[in-house]
């Protein structure tokens, strides 16, 4: 048992444990990840040999142990590095991400209210009339304000988050598709995706629900007819 050198033949448990280790700061993970995985594999194999199964208490113990310790490592790093350095170097959040996040916040809030209201009425394909009525009579729907948070802010958020991304792409050259690059730019990539998603919603917000409604009612066989109908609707 102690001399196990290879991964256990249960990839799901291995992937689960490796995913949990992503909670740790990069520096810690780089140093201890391999050893922690080997130790976990030994624990797992011993448990399987002893009991023939792992069970919920085993996984709960592993989960709580990793989460609590990862939090502690982040806290120690935060105290050591200070908030600014920790945010930039450990969480990979830069000032462009913060500005981008703030710019997307109004759209996100209204979008969330709209989704919750649609779910509450039991029909996601149509907007909730009372909530829409309330929102449309507020300042948020006065055209200059509406244009700002619906179009201008998401466009600015996308552009602002493209800047650090392009800078990092130029710096990293050929290693853009590597996991480390994606992980280090995950906030920029997420904000970029959300921003583009919001713009897509604006362009397709009438078409989208109409197509979903049509597909639910008539099935995929009638897709060309549904698309044509919804475009003209």
């Amino acid at each position, binding site marked *: 048992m102690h001399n196990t050198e290879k991964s256990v033949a249960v990839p799901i448990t291995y992937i689960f444990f490796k995913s949990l280790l992503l909670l740790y700061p990069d520096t810690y993970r780089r140093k201890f990840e391999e050893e922690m995985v080997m*130790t976990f594999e030994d624990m797992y194999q011993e448990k399987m040999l002893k009991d023939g199964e792992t069970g919920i208490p085993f996984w709960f113990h592993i989960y709580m*142990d990793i989460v609590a310790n990862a939090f502690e490592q982040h806290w120690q790093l935060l105290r050591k590095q200070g908030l600014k350095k920790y945010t930039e170097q450990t969480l990979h959040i830069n000032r462009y991400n913060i500005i981008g996040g703030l710019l997307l916040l109004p759209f996100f809030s209204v979008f969330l209210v709209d989704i919750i209201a649609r779910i509450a009425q039991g029909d996601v394909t149509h907007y909730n009339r009372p909530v829409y009525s309330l929102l449309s009579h507020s300042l948020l729907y006065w055209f200059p304000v509406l244009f700002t948070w619906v179009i201008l802010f998401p466009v600015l958020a996308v552009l602002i988050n493209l800047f650090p991304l392009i800078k990092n792409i130029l710096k990293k050259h050929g290693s853009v598709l590597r996991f480390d690059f994606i992980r280090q730019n995950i906030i920029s990539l997420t904000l970029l995706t959300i921003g583009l998603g919001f713009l897509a919603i604006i362009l397709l917000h009438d078409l989208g629900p109409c197509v979903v409604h049509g597909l639910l009612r008539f099935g995929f066989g009638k897709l060309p007819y549904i698309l044509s109908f919804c475009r003209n609707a």
Partner: protein
Amino acid sequence: MSKSKSFSNTNVSLTPQIFYILLALATKERHGYDIMKQVENDSQGKIRLGPGTLYGAIKRMLEEKLITAVDSSHSRRKYYQLTEKGRTLFNNELQRYNEAVELARRRSLLGKPAVAKLVIYA
């Protein structure tokens, strides 16, 4: 021992986890899982370290230079061994335990299990 307490003073008291890890390494160098099993055996199952807690403690002990990592020639595993500082700290802790037990014995407290347990973990 609080998390921020440094081991620069070798008379500082240890957490049960750190004490049992030092105890496991006092006899020979060991790798992570071996330490984990030894701690569980030595503490009669009272202390069960998960990989997170174990490597959190190992990181701290490496930073404080209580232990050092040794690469193995026949394995990918990293082994850990006590440094002089670690051994001194461990011996001082044992001495403190010993004195506490002696004191308890002189006061005839050792026959009372609950009190004996309190003295050991004081």
